[in-house]
Structure formats: C-alpha cells, structure tokens
C-alpha cells in the first residue's frame, strides 16, 4: 500500500493556508516556506470572518497565539529542532484548564474563572509548540449531543448552519470543519468527540481510557472521560494523538506503558489480512437508511482493500445506554458538587445575611442549566442509600458484561466497525426538549466509553437523503489504538482515491 498518505496536500503554499492539513503546514513552517505567524494569523482571520456564524469559539486568545507563533519562528531562525506539529494552530475544548485563560465548561457557574494552572494536555501542546488559538464551545460540562446546552448559545454545523454540529464537543468539530483550525482537542465521555466528528465530516478519536492524562480536564464522569484529537485527516489526528498521549504521574488512572505508534500505523494504512467485525447490535433499527447505505458501502471498500468482514454479536450493547445513564449521572453528581460559589466562579448572594446553604443552593440554581441539573438529580438518586445496589451497582455489572462482549469480539476480530451515529446532523431545536431522543444519538459510541477501549470516527460520504456527512466508527482493543489508524487511514485513502478530494472539501463555502 502507499507509504505516503494521501490528503489535501496542496504544493502551492500561496493557496489558502487554512485549507492545508496540519502536517503540510508544519513541514512548510519547518522549511521556512511560511512562518508560524502567517499560519496563525490566517486562522485568526478565518475565525474573524466566519465564527460569528459558526460560533465554534467561546474565547479567542489572539495575542498569546501570535506571541507563541513568533517564538516558534525565532526557534526556527535559530536553527532549533522543531516538533512534528510546531507552529500549527489548534482549538481547545473549553473543558481543559489553561493558565490565565477563561475556562467555563460552557457553564455560567464558571464564568470569569481563570485557572491558575495548566492541564497536562495544555503543557504537552505547549511543549510541542502547537499554537492554541482559543477555547471552543461545548454543551455545559460536556452533557449533551448538540452544543445546545451551552450556556453561551449553540455552535452551528458548517455544512448547514441551521443544524447542530453534534456535542458535547461541537465547537471543536465545527472549528475544524469550518477551517478555523486544522486541529482541535475534544473530550469523549459517551461520544463527545466521535459524534461531532461524524456530523461535521471530520476525524475524531477517543483514545484508550488512561492513555491521555485527565489532569486539568474538568471531570464529568471520571471513569468515562477521555480527551482526544480532532482533525480533518487521519494522519493529522495520529500526530496530535502522539503529542497528547503518554503516562502522567498527576493522573492516577493514567496507564504507565508505551503509547502505540499511531503515526506509523496511519502511514502504513493497510487492512490486508485484518479481520473486521460488524457489530450486530450497532446497526438496523433506529439507524437512518442513508447512514446505513454509506456504512455498507464503506464496509465493501474495506473488503475490497483486503480485509475479512465478519459479523459479531455483542448482546449486552443493548443495555449500554441504561448503564451509562446511571454511571455518568452518579459520578457527575459528585464531581460537580464542588461548584458551590465558595471558592471560584459564580456566587449568588442575595442580601448580606444569606446563610451558607442558601448561597450554595442559589449559586447552583442560577449557575447550572437544565441538563446539568437533570443529571445531578438522577445521579444523586441513583447513589442514594437503598437504591445504590439496584442502580449504580447493577450498572457496574452491565459494564463488566460489555467489557466481556468486547473481549469475546476481539478474540474473533482485530477491530469492530459501526456507523458512528444513527443519524446525520439534526436541525437546531429539534431534540433540545426531548432528552431521551438526544441521548439516543450516542447509542453507538457509548459502549467504548463503558469498556475503556478506543475508537475513531472518520467521514465516509454524504447521506443520499439529506446530503449531510456520515461517519464510520472503528473500535479497537485497549492500548491497540494503532489499529484505529491502520484501518481509518486505509479507508480514508481509498475514499480519497474515489472522490479525488477529502469529503470536507465538499462542504459549502461559508
């Protein structure tokens, strides 16, 4: 197979900088063809031009981004060794602490809070000389699948501004899809990287739980949360993955083992001889025909590339949604207890003599939106004495059964595939008052979070029904993240050959 990956490589750097891949930009900066400042400025200009309509960003850190870009240019001029992504701009989900930069988690309750410390991911991005442009919009505390639960208004899907870009990391996906940044960081608790990637025609990866540090990631559900890369190509995602992954002594749940060579896997892009499993439970009823059509075509492409396709049974995946909506609210009810107006963020104190309980209650009443309150109440109930065994305890048992389903499946096949989402992007407002319908959008992505293994979503075409992007999800075993890239890059390359361009190039001009 091809050792040089295909992608939107435009040899003429006079062409629009914002449409280049991260790797092309990094090489151009390294060679001196273009400066990091020019690249950063081009993206800041793009944000200025389109973000009023897309609303991917909650905060743009113009001065710091340009200052960092200048430092990269100085380094290059001094002949210093530059990293593989040095000088490339990135959009950071607003759930990751960044020193001195507003970090709201899409919530009113953290309005005005300036973290006094950097998350480990931000430290690693800085060390790699990746330019952080700003913080992206998200559903409040990452609870939601559309960004409509952001306290700061929704983001819009660049394919159709009247539709949602997915969530919770809709801002990060929209920024990448709208060419506001070639790279972004998202976090994925039940699909918050993969679902927006699928709905915006971009690539998103949820790495193995514990392979990317959670230190500085504001916790939604500690046992499910995992940060990961967003990009327009599989190879770009692999490079970003290799920057952020690795052991961190500040995160006890961080895995102390070598990160699989995801970049090499993306470059290899070869599925010959691989056994690929189709999960029986992640298809059929509830999935739009247009989504299934593109999915089946993509599976055919994988077969043509030399993979062996096998159907596998994961019977407990049907229970994943129920287990997830007990475990997540339970952990979140506890994780979000610290937002009480006592130490940081919003503090509601009506009248000088309000007691501590009143201040805490009023602050939480005013500071949290409806979905956050809904899940805190669910979790508080599920953990209550007398209900724990029936709810949280049972959910943990289902979790174990789902892990066993995966283990059995990966005994038969190397990777599993499914549609990333049951539908394409839905119109703004359609599901905002119907939480259950909203939850169902994550039905295919949740099992991986419960089991802690890894998955990647990549675009596989436009649904014939509505002309909107469809994503395919590749799932691999724990710490076998390289397989995601092996398969993802092979499929991406084959589709590129077929179309002559990346799918994102078909997005309407903004």
């Amino acid at each position, binding site marked *: 197979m091809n050792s040089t990956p295909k992608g939107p490589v435009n040899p003429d750097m006079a062409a629009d900088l914002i449409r280049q891949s991260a790797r092309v930009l990094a090489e151009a900066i390294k060679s001196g063809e273009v400066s990091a400042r020019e690249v950063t400025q081009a993206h800041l200009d793009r944000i200025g031009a389109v973000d009023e309509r897309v609303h991917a960003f909650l905060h743009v850190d113009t001065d710091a981004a340009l200052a960092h870009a200048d430092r990269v240019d100085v380094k290059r001029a001094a002949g210093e060794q530059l990293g593989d992504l040095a000088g490339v701009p990135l959009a950071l989900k607003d759930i990751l*602490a960044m020193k001195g930069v507003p970090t709201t988690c899409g919530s009113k309750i953290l309005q005005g809070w300036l973290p006094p410390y950097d998350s480990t991911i931000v430290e690693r991005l800085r060390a790699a000389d990746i330019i952080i442009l700003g913080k992206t919009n998200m559903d409040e505390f990452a609870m939601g699948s559309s960004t409509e639960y952001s306290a700061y208004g929704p983001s819009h899907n660049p394919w159709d501004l009247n539709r949602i870009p997915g969530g919770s990391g809709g801002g990060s996906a929209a920024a990448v899809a709208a060419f506001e940044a070639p790279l972004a960081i998202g976090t994925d608790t039940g699909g918050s990287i993969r679902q927006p990637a699928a709905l915006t025609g971009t690539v998103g990866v949820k790495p193995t739980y514990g392979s990317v540090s959670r230190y500085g990631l504001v916790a939604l559900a500690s046992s499910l949360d995992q940060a990961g890369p967003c990009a327009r190509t599989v190879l770009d995602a692999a490079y970003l993955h290799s920057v952020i992954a690795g052991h961190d002594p500040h995160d006890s749940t961080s895995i102390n083992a070598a990160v699989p060579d995801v970049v090499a896997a993306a470059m290899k892009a070869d599925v010959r001889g691989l056994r690929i499993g189709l999960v029986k439970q992640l298809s059929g009823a509830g999935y739009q025909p247009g989504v299934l059509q593109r999915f089946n075509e993509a599976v055919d492409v994988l077969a043509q590339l030399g993979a062996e396709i096998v159907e596998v049974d994961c019977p407990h995946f049907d229970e994943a949604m129920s287990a997830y909506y007990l475990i997540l609210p339970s952990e979140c009810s506890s994780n979000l207890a610290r937002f009480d107006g006592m130490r940081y963020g919003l503090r509601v104190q009506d009248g000088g003599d309000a007691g501590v309980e009143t201040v805490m209650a009023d602050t939480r009443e005013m500071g949290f939106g409806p979905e956050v309150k809904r899940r805190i109440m669910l979790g508080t109930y599920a953990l209550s004495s007398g209900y724990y065994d029936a709810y949280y305890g049972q959910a943990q048992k289902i979790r174990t059964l789902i892990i066993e389903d995966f283990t059995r499946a990966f005994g038969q096949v190397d990777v599993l595939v499914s549609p990333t989402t049951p539908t394409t992007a839905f119109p703004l407002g359609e599901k905002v008052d119907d939480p259950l319908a909203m939850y169902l959008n994550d039905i295919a992505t949740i099992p991986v979070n419960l089991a802690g293994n890894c998955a990647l979503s990549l675009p596989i075409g436009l649904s014939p029904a509505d002309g909107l992007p469809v994503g395919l999800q590749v799932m691999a075993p724990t710490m076998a993240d390289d397989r995601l890239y092996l398969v993802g890059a092979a499929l991406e390359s084959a589709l590129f050959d077929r179309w002559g361009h990346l799918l994102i190039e078909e997005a309407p001009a903004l």
Partner: protein
Amino acid sequence: MSSAHNHVTTTVSFDEALTRYDPVIGLEVHVELGTASKMFCACSTEFGAPPNTQVCPVCLALPGAMPVINAKAVESIIRMGLALHCSIATWCRMARKNYFYPDMPKNFQISQYDEPICTDGWLDVLVPNEDGSTELVRVEIERVHLEEDTGKLTHAGGATGRIHGADYSLVDYNRAGIPLVEIVTKPITGTAALAPAVAKAYVAELRDIMRDLGVSDVKMEEGSLRCDANLSLNIPGDAWGTRTETKNVNSLRSVERAVRSEIERQAAVLDKGGVIRQETRHFHEDTGVTTPGRSKEEAEDYRYFPEPDLVPIAPDPAWVEKLRASIPQQPSLRRAGLATAWGISAFDMESLVNAGVLALVEAAVADGVAPDTARKWWAGELLRQANDRGVPPQELAVTGADILRVDELIATGALNDQLARQVFDGVLLGEGSVDDVVAARGLGVVTDETELLAAIDQALADQPEVAEKIRAGKIAAAGAIVGGVMKATRGRADASRVRELILSRCEVSG
C-alpha cells in the same frame, strides 16, 4: 415526644448508675499522619503556617485537578494496622463520602467505606484498678481506614461559635487533605465501672503505639489525635441501649470524663423512664458535661461510591510481611516487661512514662547503668535540670557513660549526691566530661583529714555552746557542727565521716 428527650440536667452518681446499668462503649479515633506531604498532593502538612499558604489546585479542588495517593500514608496505615493485629486487605478502594460543607473543597471527602484497608484487629490495654493493681482488657478493632482531613472553619460573630448565627466564616484549607486514619473499635462490653478507665487507657495506648511507629506526632492539643466516644447503657441481661456519639473529646482526661459523665446522664434519663436519642453530643472541657448536637435521625445519606479518580490499593503481600517484621513490641507490654526486669512497680513505671524519661532510662541501662541509678538520676536531678532549662529531657546532653562515671565516683566516695548535681550542671553547661568538671570545679570529696579537722576545730570554736553540749554527751547537737563543716567545704565533705571526727574530737563515742 416525652419531656425526658430534652435537656436533662439532673444526673445520678457514677457508682449508682453502675448498680443498675451495664455500659457499652465504642471509640472512634482519628489520627493525623505525620507524612511530609498531604494525602493526595505535594502540599506540606506543617502545623501552624499562615492560613491558605499550604494549598494547591488538588487540595483546593480546583476544576480539573486530580488526586494522587500518598504512598507513605498507605505504608503508615498498614504499619498501624499490623501493630493493631489487623488483617491487611490485598485489594481495596477509596470511596467518596458526599456531603456539602464549606470546609471540604470538593464537597466530598475521599475516605473508605465498605473496603477498609485494615480490619478485625485487637489491642490489649493495661487498665489501672482503684486498688493500684492493673487489669489486661482486650479491645477489639473493627476497622482502620484511610481518609483526608477537612479544612478549618472559624466562625466570627454570633453567640455560639457555630456556623449558624455567625456574621461570617473564614476557611483555612491548610489542613484540607492531610492524611487521616480512623480507628474504630467493636463495641466494648463487660467493663462496668472500668469503662471510663478503659476508654482512657485505650486511647493512651493508641497514642503510644502511633508515637512508637513514628507515624504521627499524636498531639491531642493540636488535633492530630481526636476521639469520638460512643456510649449506651442497658439493664444487665437486656439488649444494648441506644447509643450517643460524643465529639470534641480532645485530651486523655476528657476521654475518661466524657464517658463517665455520659454514663451518669444516660442513667438519669433511663431512671426517669426516658428514652435515649441517637444523637451526636458535644463534650465541654470546662464543665465536664455533654450537650446535644445533631440528631442522627436526620442523618445525611453520604451516597458513598468507589472513588473513580484513584486506582485500587493493592499492597504486595511480601512488602506487608516486611513491614510486619519491623513493628515494635506494643508499648504497654514492653513497659510491663521492663518493669519486671528492673524490679519496679507499675506505678513507678507510669511515673517514668509521664515524666517522659522512660526512653532515656532505657538508653542509660543499655549503656550499663544500673536501672535504679538510671531512674534516680533521670526521674530526679536530670528531669529537674531539664525543667529549669525549659527543654524536654531528651535534649539534655548527658550520656549513659556520664551517669556511669558519676555513679562510680559516688561508689568510691569521691563524690556525693550533692556534688554529683554540680557535676551534671557542669556537664550540661558544656564544661567537659564528668572528670573535667570534677577537676575544674574542684568537686572531689575532701579525704585529707587534716583539712577536715581544721574545719571542725573552726566550727567548734565558732559555736562554743554547741561544743559544750556535745562534750556533755548531747550527741544530737553534732548536726549543727556538721552543717558548719559542710558549708566551709562547699559540700565536698563526707558528712558521716565528719560526724565521726567531731565526736572523736569531743571525746564522746557515737
């Protein structure tokens, strides 16, 4: 609700109470570990620093911060568990105890719930009877678990010093996250009138064990050892009564007084046909009585669940065995052995312990000093010297060799006790060795009888009427002349020899 529920002020006498009721006690002791850093972060645990100077994102619970367990704290609690003859779990988890209170920055405490690290131990304590004899009582330990301390609240204004009614409250998070060990006994029954003494002896023994293990400074006055005492009464043969939990018991004496006073109070309630409410009570050092606090009937549901930000604790059994081999003998049993070896009473041993010189006596004995001699000096002159200098006795620069040398000089008649005090004074002032001080200060006993006789003649001449009495056979009068000689020789004379010489000088026989 009967009126007996409320503030009963009348009590029956302790002795009378025990004629009708059997007490059941239970003790929960919290020990702050003396680790250099906190339970889950690198902050210092030093006592007394200015408020909120020993804090970081982790112990302030800033969004995104994550705990990392202190390995030294785990080692300390395992050593404590081993000293208390507990089983050590091979796998256990920390748990979140959820409740809102402003001294707890996360609004949950990381503690242990149904998987404590140490379980099912026991401790034999020597309890003094009223007649001076001692009784060995076995206290069974239910569990020893690890948790973190809370911050410290100071309530300003208002009448009660409690949070309700205060004008404002200040929070110091220096203490938040300091490792805390909770040691819980099983119900202690059958102790009757000894109950208060058992409680005191148990806490004292725990304190000594912690000190011996070097895991805590166990200073009750600084709050590094705190005790809650549970107590219930029942008519002999009946089922156990309802228990109360008395908090604020912050000295050994208070442990004894609190149990005693609660026995008297409960007996008075029961005598009147009243009902004991299950409640928390506060002990008041000044009045020696307990008053009601929060009722357990309105107790909170802590919604415990396993801490998802920490991996399970799984101590290597080989390491645990290594720790077990390093556990010193239990202090009271070791002391009992020493008392037998030295031929002293339990009372004498206790006075050595209370004076804080037991270790010094032991060290001197190890250096070859006779036990009686070592005790005589350390419990007497050297302790006085320490007190005069305002330093703890272990800081005195006196070695076993010094005591040995002084003892030799006394045995040969070269020093007497009076002179020996001056010798130690010189040694402590850094004037050199025992022999150096004797030489430099001229402290040898006068053995030259010519010099002594000259002093005697002078004294007889100074007090002629006394001399007459002696010559007339009133031997008792010789004391005045001995005093004069001792004064003239600055104590350097052997008083009994002087007396002999006076009598022969006056030609009377003793």
